[in-house]
């Protein structure tokens, strides 16, 4: 194993014991980038290796633990493309709040990772700059939209990463890449500097190799931000070592998420996970959330509605790509026509449609009602259960191109993750098994602000079933160039 295969907390321990030099970690990651990046293409932009190495400071341990940032989170001075042609030449003029927080601890950024254009997609195939590949099987997608970040962590081209999650964009790629991903409670991590897809659903979160790293990274990025009006002024999560003791905990297995078109092998992994929890002393029961089946249609009204407005600012007037045109209007129209990819256009059109006069009540307002019903289902379930569980994705990582022609099928595959965003809840995805050497993710969902509980449950599972210790063959020493 190389240093790039270790977790952040393992590396920090080694550094503090002076068993390794801080720069060795960074060099190991850079080495991994050089070897794997041509095949994986996790990054859209990689900082100059010299600079990354020179950013290491002896007195700042986190400067030795390279972090990758999804290319829709602004890092001052670095490109921020959102994997879109329309922002292909855009350099971020300011730092997102999460980046400011990381910079306080001298976090060392490797680069910006690939995503589905404007975070719209579940496979990272919607990137204007080409897809990222799944380190477990190069023929398959890494999931999306934070596919670059998840693949990068899985392969060791960064130790940990930030992603963003609007309908599963952290958890699903984490699941597909065999890593850990957290979608925090809405409002606990500032969205300032995250290029908005659907404002009421977006959250930035960590993607890491294990639960401890996830808790650690989350502790650095969460907290109230006066620059984000939807950021909640609550006591922030502070990291404390996890015990994994879940004895007596009541866990609800969401019935509806185990039936609809689920891959039987995925279901088997989830059933096995139930057994593991029971062995650990938790009580697991099935629970029904009757409105959860409306999640996908609800989401595909609300998210595109917000997106159609959020993406209106990309018009070629002030920044980014600009197409020609005889008038300002023509220029703006051409810019958007040429600058956006097909999935983004599809969603802008969907969103424009559902907000139009005469359709607003029938679609948008109705969807808002269903959003409340879905949130109500969760609230009720949490009267009985401490956490809920489900698969993160009902299917295994699919092959590149397999679903590109069928967006509806792609949308439906997000059934397990979407309801959590609609309800504003925190959820973590952890590896819970492998099928034909492809990882399967378990989603653990909690009530608002229950991140520390999620970490305990996830940690308990992880200690009992250490799937997180597996690394894709490609990234290990066996990887041959």
């Amino acid at each position, binding site marked *: 194993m190389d240093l790039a295969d270790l977790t952040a907390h393992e590396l920090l321990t080694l550094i503090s014991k002076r068993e390794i030099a801080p720069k060795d970690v960074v060099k190991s990651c850079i080495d991994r980038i050089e070897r794997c990046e041509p095949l994986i293409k996790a990054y859209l932009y990689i900082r100059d290796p010299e600079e990354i190495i020179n950013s290491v400071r002896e007195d700042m341990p986190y400067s030795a633990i390279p972090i990758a940032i999804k290319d829709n989170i*602004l890092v001052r001075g670095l490109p921020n493309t959102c994997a879109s042609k329309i922002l292909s030449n855009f350099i971020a003029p300011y730092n997102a709040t999460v980046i400011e927080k990381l910079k306080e601890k001298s976090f060392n950024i490797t680069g910006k990772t690939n995503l589905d254009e404007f975070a719209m997609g579940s496979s990272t195939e919607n990137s204007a700059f080409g897809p990222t590949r799944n380190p477990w099987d190069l023929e398959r997608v890494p999931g999306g939209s934070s596919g670059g970040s998840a693949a990068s962590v899985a392969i060791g081209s960064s130790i940990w990463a930030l992603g963003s999650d609007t309908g599963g964009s952290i958890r699903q790629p984490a699941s597909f890449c065999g890593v850990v991903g957290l979608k925090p409670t809405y409002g606990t991590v500032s969205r300032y500097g995250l290029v908005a897809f659907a404002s*009421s659903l977006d959250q930035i979160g960590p993607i890491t190799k294990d639960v401890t790293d996830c808790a650690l990274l989350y502790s650095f990025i969460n907290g109230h931000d006066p620059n984000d009006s939807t950021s909640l002024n609550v006591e922030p999560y502070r990291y404390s070592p996890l015990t994994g003791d879940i004895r007596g905990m009541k866990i609800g297995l969401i019935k509806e998420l185990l039936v609809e078109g689920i891959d039987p092998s995925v279901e088997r992994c989830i059933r096995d996970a139930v057994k593991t929890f029971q062995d650990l002393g938790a009580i697991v029961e099935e629970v029904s959330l009757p409105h959860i089946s409306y999640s996908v249609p609800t989401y595909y009204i609300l998210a595109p509605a917000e997106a*159609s407005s959020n993406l*209106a600012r990309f*018009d070629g007037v002030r*920044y980014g790509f600009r197409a020609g045109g005889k008038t300002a209007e023509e220029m703006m129209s051409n810019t958007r026509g040429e600058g956006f990819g097909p999935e983004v256009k599809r969603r802008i059109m969907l969103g424009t449609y559902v907000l139009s006069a005469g359709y607003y009540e029938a679609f948008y307002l109705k969807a808002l009602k269903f959003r409340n019903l879905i949130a109500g289902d969760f609230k009720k379930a949490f009267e009985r259960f401490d956490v809920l569980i489900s698969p993160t994705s009902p299917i295994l990582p699919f092959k590149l191109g397999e679903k590109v022609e069928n967006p509806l099928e792609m949308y439906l595959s997000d059934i397990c993750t979407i309801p959590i965003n609609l309800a504003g809840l925190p959820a973590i995805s952890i590896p819970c098994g492998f099928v034909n050497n492809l990882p399967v993710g378990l989603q653990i969902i909690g009530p608002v602000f229950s991140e520390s509980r999620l970490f305990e449950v996830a940690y308990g599972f992880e200690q009992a079933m250490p799937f997180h210790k597996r690394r894709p063959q490609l990234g290990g020493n066996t990887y041959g160039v």
Partner: protein
Amino acid sequence: MEYEVNIGIEIHAELLTKSKVFCSCPVQFGAPPNTLTCPVCLGLPGALPVLNKKAVEYAILTALALNCKINRNAIFHRKNYFYPDLPKNYQISQYDTPIGVQGFLEIETSKERKRIRIRRVHLEEDTGKLIHSGGRITGSDMSFIDFNRSGVPLLEIVSEPDISSPEEAKEYLTNIRDILVFLGVCDGKMEEGSMRCEANVSIRPKGSEKLGTKTELKNINSFRAVERALQYEIDRQIDIVSKGKEVIQETRHWDEKNERTISMRSKEEAHDYRYFPEPDLVPLEIDDAWIERLRSQIPELPEEKYERYKDLGLTPYEAKLLAHDLEMSIFFDETIKLYNNPKNIANWLLVDVTKELKDRNKVITQTLITPQLMTELLTLIDEGRISGRIAKEILPEVIDKGLSPRKIIEERNLVQITDVSELASVIEQVIKENASVVEEYKKGKEKSFMFLVGQVMKLTKGKANPKLVNELLKKTLG
């Protein structure tokens, strides 16, 4: 046929907050282009709005002053449309839950006193400013955008179509302007664009219940233009209808130069703004305590001042002039605390002081005269120490230099002559030198008496107490 007119007015007022409505950039005019900007007001990716509390307070204050009900749960909406001066291509505005609703304003015209209902008062953000090379958009081959104005808080005040003449419209508009100025929330300068106005105009046969088809008038950039634009549009509509044709619902542009309205776009081309709740902001909760605290901050408004001034004995004309002039009314109110003759003060302020201010193109607070100095001046007249004429003479120095009237008259020996013996000798001299005039007077020519008084004043360089001169002269002439 006789027609009646229905006019509804939409006012946009730029609020005088220190910073913009959704970011901390300063609100300031005349700064070099694009120097007062940040990621938020430039609509950069990832930037988020944070609501300026002061702007909300100004909105609530105005809504209260206009007798509105305050929505306890006001929500911001996005108004979506593409235009290069709108950086996000949506404007954060308010839709079905504005800050204030169902208010009213009383206006008084030459004909009647009447209540104009106010539909809504809401808060939104201003756009940037487009500058076209060559000055006009048509034929211009390049345009520039200044985003300094982008995000400046705007208050939108919408009336019901209760206004029935251009005169009423102007009255409504000036009343709103005065209220905004008195509240200190807007400087109310239409010509500079800090207060803008649009009007919906329709006509209907007198007695008809259904409103006629309306047109929307834009580009009304001065108080003067309001009346003329509306009158033109009313005449145009009457002309159409009386020819048996129909008014088309459309937006029309007031062409100031040619004094006419021209069609901009018809209803078919109207925007669908796709309003939806702004997900980047949380609902604005306004509680009773906040409302009451603000209500207690509302200063005395022109309407109340007007009534109070009439009670002080001023004529309605004087009362109105004073009550609608913020600086002058404050000065007046301060002065009456020191000098108990409101009528006299009003007279001086509205005539002599106003004339001096006009000459200087200044408001009273921009000069050095104070209520104390004003009181001193008026007291000197009352005490008979100076004549009104002398007072008028030294007024400019009080205004420009802030000098004490008492000191001016002492230093320049302008104190009125009230010494009977001193005046008697002057009178004696005047009678001696004007024997023929005296003769005429004695024959009954009253005018001659005034001439003799004038001669006394001339010899005393205006310092003689005119009342005393009168008495003494009469006595001497028998």
